[in-house]
């Protein structure tokens, strides 16, 4: 079978071309390093079978990074294949360095100049005719151009390598073309950067964009979108419930299908609209080229906490949903950095905790409920920054040299963004959805069966295994002041999904307000601190397992529980026994003293103007 290999520098649009040629949904983005392995597909719509391979972006035939080595090894093994060398029309001069290497090495190469539409007043296709090697100028986002490319591949697929090509002549023509393009270069990006990258302007734009994303996702638009989707599915599920209830099947199976399977699927679907909206909006920000600039601008501040500028988006997404935030860390190339970012995400308060905070805040801090909720969020940020410093010390790693290509500003391509988002949601539903369903079924079993494994028909929740377990585990929570098993039940249910803390107590016949009335002000603060910090929900844990492995998923589960327990215990003790306040104040004073002593001893970093540098 014939084969075509897409080769080129990073961020030249190889994966976009691959997706258009094969109809695949591989992740594409407006920055380098998105493709990390060789992808294979078949060119669609041709009368003969031609395989296409999408390689990670490379700068030379002697790559250093893992993905570059993979690409170079693949090229060595497939010397006979047709190489479609993909160039970015805006960067022809730099892109040609690798093309020259490949022509000299004897590869069967043809040029595909992508983003040709961005070069005005110049017909690149006409210019390419002057070359000895075949070439085509396209815009990979246009269907018409992809059809042209398919025909081009079909024609040139069986041609022999141009071993006799005069490299000097080609270089001369190429230099001439690059100069012409440089003259017609679009300087839009430079102009925008000159304005946007001013410190104050950028900070303002960043805050506006982040708050817009959150306002749209978790504000009225997201709520209405969720409501429409949920109403649609609720109708389907209500009809299903009616069919099951009318069916001639046993009570256990009815309860399993209604309270287990249907509630499980309904819970997963309730996550989807907001996650979809959030991913869609973040993809738009990525596609415009804004993300790379955020990474550059905030890199210094985040480096102080052992992170980089790229971590900032994952941390912000964490305020919406920890599961999605964990998935967004894929953009971080450095494994250690990725792990550290993921370890911090459970400290960030996700949107599912907000209803719990509001119920309790309304009951106990009516006048200042928003101040109280804001204080909780601030507390979660402070704790996460403290742990960022701790993890920086524990998980030490020599920093790589930071070089990052900053892409041009482009208008987002909604079709590609939508495809990307769908692919992430698809993955979410398959990988995480199945596991959540399993855990929800387990919870159903624990809620609906007694300790003698008999089905509870009369809704006597006190007989259930879950209540029994909670009663047994109560001794663990007594030091925190939790004396009622219902409180423990709600915490156990929160491990499945934080939404279930409020929803779950309703199964026991309690409204959220009655549940809140079991607490006093001090206990409320302890309970909310515990909820704020304790182990994230099962979907987040599974997501962490998928991204960094089982060991770290178990660590997050256990460590978060212990940290929450310790902080809640301290809070409880401080509020009930005032001598602990003095101990805490003393500890903080000592801490501040140590900080200043260490700071005074630390040598201030040189910016190139010290006496030593001047001597050199």
């Amino acid at each position, binding site marked *: 079978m014939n084969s075509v290999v897409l080769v080129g*520098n990073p961020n030249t649009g190889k994966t976009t071309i691959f997706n258009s040629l094969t109809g695949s949904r591989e992740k594409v983005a407006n920055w380098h390093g998105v493709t990390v392995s060789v992808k294979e597909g078949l060119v669609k719509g041709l009368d003969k079978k031609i395989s296409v391979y999408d390689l990670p972006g490379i*700068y*030379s035939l002697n*790559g*250093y990074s893992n993905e570059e080595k993979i690409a170079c090894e693949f090229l060595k093994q497939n010397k006979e294949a047709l190489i479609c060398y993909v160039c970015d029309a*805006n*960067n022809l*001069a*730099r892109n040609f*360095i*690798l093309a020259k290497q490949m022509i000299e090495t004897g590869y069967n190469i043809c040029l595909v100049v992508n983003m040709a539409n961005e070069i005005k007043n110049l017909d690149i296709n006409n210019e390419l005719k002057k070359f000895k090697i075949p070439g085509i100028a396209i815009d990979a986002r246009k269907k018409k151009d992809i059809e042209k490319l398919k025909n081009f591949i079909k024609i040139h697929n069986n041609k022999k390598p141009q071993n006799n090509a005069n490299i000097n002549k080609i270089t001369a023509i190429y230099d001439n073309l690059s100069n012409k393009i*440089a003259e017609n*270069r679009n300087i839009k*990006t430079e102009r925008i*950067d000159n304005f946007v*990258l001013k*410190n104050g302007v950028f900070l303002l734009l960043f805050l506006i964009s982040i708050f817009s994303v959150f306002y749209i996702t978790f504000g009225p638009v997201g709520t209405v979108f969720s409501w429409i989707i949920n109403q649609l599915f609720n109708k389907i599920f209500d009809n299903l419930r009616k069919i099951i209830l009318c069916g001639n099947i046993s009570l256990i199976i009815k309860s399993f299908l209604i309270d287990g399977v249907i509630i499980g699927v309904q819970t997963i679907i309730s996550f989807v609209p907001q996650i979809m909206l959030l991913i869609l909006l973040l993809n738009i920000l990525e596609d415009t080229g804004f993300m*790379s600039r955020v*990474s*550059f*601008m*905030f*890199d*210094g*501040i985040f*480096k102080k906490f052992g992170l980089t*500028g790229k971590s900032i988006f994952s941390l912000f997404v964490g305020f919406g949903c920890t599961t999605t935030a964990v998935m967004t860390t894929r953009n971080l190339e450095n494994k250690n950095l990725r792990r550290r970012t993921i370890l911090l995400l459970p400290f960030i308060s996700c949107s599912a905790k907000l209803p719990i905070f509001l119920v309790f805040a309304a009951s106990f801090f009516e006048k200042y409920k928003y101040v109280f909720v804001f204080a909780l969020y601030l507390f979660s940020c402070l704790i996460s920054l403290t742990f960022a410093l701790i993890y920086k010390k524990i998980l030490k790693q020599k920093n790589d*040299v*930071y*070089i*990052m*290509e*900053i892409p041009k500003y482009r208008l987002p391509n909604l079709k590609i963004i939508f495809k990307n988002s769908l692919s992430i949601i698809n993955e979410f539903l398959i990988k995480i959805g199945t596991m959540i369903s399993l855990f929800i079924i387990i919870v159903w079993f624990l809620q609906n069966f007694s300790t003698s494994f008999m089905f509870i028909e009369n809704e006597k929740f006190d007989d259930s295994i879950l209540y029994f377990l909670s009663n047994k585990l109560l001794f663990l929570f007594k030091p925190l002041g939790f004396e009622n098993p219902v409180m423990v039940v709600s915490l156990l249910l929160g491990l499945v999904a934080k939404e279930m803390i409020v929803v779950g107590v309703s199964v026991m016949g309690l409204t959220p307000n009655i549940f809140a009335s079991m607490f006093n002000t001090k206990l409320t603060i302890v309970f909310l601190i515990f909820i704020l910090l304790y182990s994230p929900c099962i979907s987040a844990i599974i997501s962490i397992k998928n991204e960094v492995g089982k060991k770290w998923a178990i660590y997050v589960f256990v460590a978060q529980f212990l940290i929450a327990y310790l902080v809640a215990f301290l809070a409880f003790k401080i509020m009930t026994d005032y001598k602990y306040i003095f101990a805490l104040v003393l500890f903080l004073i000592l801490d501040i003293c140590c900080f200043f002593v260490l700071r005074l001893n630390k040598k201030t970093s*040189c*910016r*190139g*103007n010290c006496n030593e*540098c001047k001597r050199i």
Partner: protein
Amino acid sequence: MTAKIGETYTIKDVSISDEKLKRQIVNLGINKNNKIKLLKHNYNKSAILVEVMCVRYALDKLVCEQIKLYE
């Protein structure tokens, strides 16, 4: 060599003594005859935005130190 933001220099005129960084720059297809324009610092000056061969790169402070960057 005293480099300033907004100015353009030839790479061979600025001393980059770090071997790893040198390799990475060569790997990007940038050679010592290319012109490098220093565009902008980020917050707290830990990285710098430069333009080489019409492409923008964010480079860490190591580069700023190697070329002894002053504003």
